């Protein structure tokens, strides 16, 4: 097998890369451009709502540069987890951008789209057949939770992407995909050792985050028979043993064993070797195929509608009395709107707004930033309750008050802002499948 070079332009499509870095990267003759466009990292909103994580403007600008580069070099462009969550509406939205790009730039290409939406009934059958395992959620997936789920996807492995490559796709717009698999698909399709290709994918999927200085920028990986070599696109960055090995720990729990669709990778025997100043060679990953093939489900449910109010507090007497005041106001609001339930949260910046129950330092704050948050079954109710609390807090009387003209400094009028629908994760579980491609249909279109 001749060495195969993958160019990954950035850690998340839409977050940018250098033109010089892309040009230099393309001069190294990559066989494929592969990039990830999503994750659960930004939270459940993008899966639940179907709204894109990154604007169409940014996605179109970057996809135009990548597709033009790919077409000029005659190599495929693969994008995984499009739209942020990889749901069907997000696949459609990104595919529409590809059609615009092809037409506006006079490009002929074969577009493959791969959906990753899981029918709720399919997941229910798996629950009933005892073919769903908890991953890390700490609770079992139930039929009830699936009934509440408004969007359900599964992470595909490399196999559906290889199917699209086999069908001659020039641009592949994939729904939710395991990040590593997006990068690893082309080398595996060409015969690379899956262990090496997937390990390379783990490091490359964040772009030049594994280089120094790190950035959202171009990174290249070249896999051969025994290992792979990493190198940043930009000549101003370098890959070092430190930068690469540190990145191997990032955003994952177990640095030595990592599960993925249908496999587990063992990294205990890995070694990293500096080649010259800018390259690192990695060897030693081993892969075990799991007995059954499981895919990770990701689901979101509508938790309600949210309104918030943001206010500052400077008076030390109010700050000293704050805990009692907030408890009273919450209780009063619940009673006021009963029997309609409302969920009230206070983010008290300056006290424990960032760390909540993990905060261990309790020195008094000079200034507090207060976010009042209400979630309810309708936006109208959330807004009403939020204003009921912010208004009552403004004029609340408490023991020891020195300034009775108002307790809150509002930066905005209106004081209460409607945030819209709120989603929560409802599924984060493993589901057994009959084949790696069963749930991920490939559709081809010649543009």
């Amino acid at each position: 097998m001749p060495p195969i070079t993958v160019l990954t332009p950035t850690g998340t499509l839409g977050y940018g890369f250098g033109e010089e870095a892309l040009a230099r990267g393309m001069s190294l003759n990559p066989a494929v451009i592969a990039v990830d466009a999503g994750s659960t990292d930004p939270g459940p909103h993008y899966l639940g709502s179907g709204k894109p994580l990154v604007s169409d403007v940014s996605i179109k600008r970057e996809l135009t540069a990548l597709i033009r580069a790919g077409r000029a070099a005659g190599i495929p462009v693969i994008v995984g987890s499009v739209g942020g969550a990889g749901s069907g509406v997000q696949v459609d939205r990104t595919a529409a951008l590809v059609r615009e790009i092809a037409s506006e730039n006079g490009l002929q290409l074969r577009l493959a789209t791969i959906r990753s939406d899981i029918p709720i009934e399919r997941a229910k059958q798996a629950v009933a057949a005892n073919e769903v395992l908890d991953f890390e959620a700490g609770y079992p997936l139930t039929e009830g939770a699936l009934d509440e789920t408004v969007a359900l996807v599964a992470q595909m492995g490399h196999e559906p992407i290889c199917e699209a490559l086999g069908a001659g796709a020039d641009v592949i717009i994939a729904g939710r995909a395991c990040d590593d698999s997006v990068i690893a698909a082309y080398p595996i399709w060409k015969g690379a050792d899956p262990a090496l290709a997937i390990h390379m994918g783990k490091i490359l999927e964040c772009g030049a985050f594994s280089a120094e200085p790190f950035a959202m920028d171009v990174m290249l990986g070249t896999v051969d028979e025994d290992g792979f070599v990493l190198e940043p696109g930009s000549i101003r960055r370098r890959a070092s043993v430190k930068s690469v090995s540190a990145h191997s720990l990032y955003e994952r729990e177990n640095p030595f064993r990592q599960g993925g669709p249908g496999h587990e990778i063992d990294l205990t025997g890995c070694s990293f070797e500096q080649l010259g100043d800018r390259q690192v060679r990695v060897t030693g990953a081993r892969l075990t195929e799991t007995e059954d093939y499981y895919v990770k489900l990701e689901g979101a449910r509508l938790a309600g509608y949210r309104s918030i109010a943001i206010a500052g507090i400077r008076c030390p007497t109010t700050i000293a009395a704050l805990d009692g005041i907030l408890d009273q106001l919450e209780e009063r609001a619940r009673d006021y709107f009963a029997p309609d339930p409302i969920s009230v949260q206070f983010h008290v910046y300056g006290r424990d707004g960032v760390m909540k129950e993990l905060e261990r330092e309790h020195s008094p704050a000079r200034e507090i930033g207060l976010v009042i948050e209400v979630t309810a079954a309708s936006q109208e109710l959330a807004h009403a309750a939020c204003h009921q609390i912010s208004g009552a807090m403004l004029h609340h009387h408490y023991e020891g008050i020195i300034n009775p003209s108002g307790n809150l400094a509002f930066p905005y009028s209106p004081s209460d802002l409607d945030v819209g629908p709120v989603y929560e994760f409802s599924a984060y579980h493993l589901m057994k499948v009959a084949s790696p491609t069963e749930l991920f249909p490939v559709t081809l279109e010649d543009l």
Partner: protein
Amino acid sequence: MAARPLREIADIVRSKNAGPYRITFDILCREKANYETIRNSGAITPETVARAYGLAPSDISSFFEIDMANAIKITIRRPRAQGSAGEGDMYGCQQHVPLMNMLVPLR
């Protein structure tokens, strides 16, 4: 015995989501000697980290000393799932301060 906060010995102390239900902490050292000082001090263990965050030892889901990378990795179950009611750090990237301030005795 003299002691210094971890942040003065390690080069990076960071926190980050590892999926929606976990937060993972990495302590990274450029110099092997600094890593060994931390590792050999016995100051950073699942029990001491749990105490620094007011967690039960069972909330620590894993702990690794990674000699090859001069790194220690600790993962906790988050008290509130990412994006759930009242949760305040969507990327889990600002939870590192109690760890950074833990004291490492110097021999």
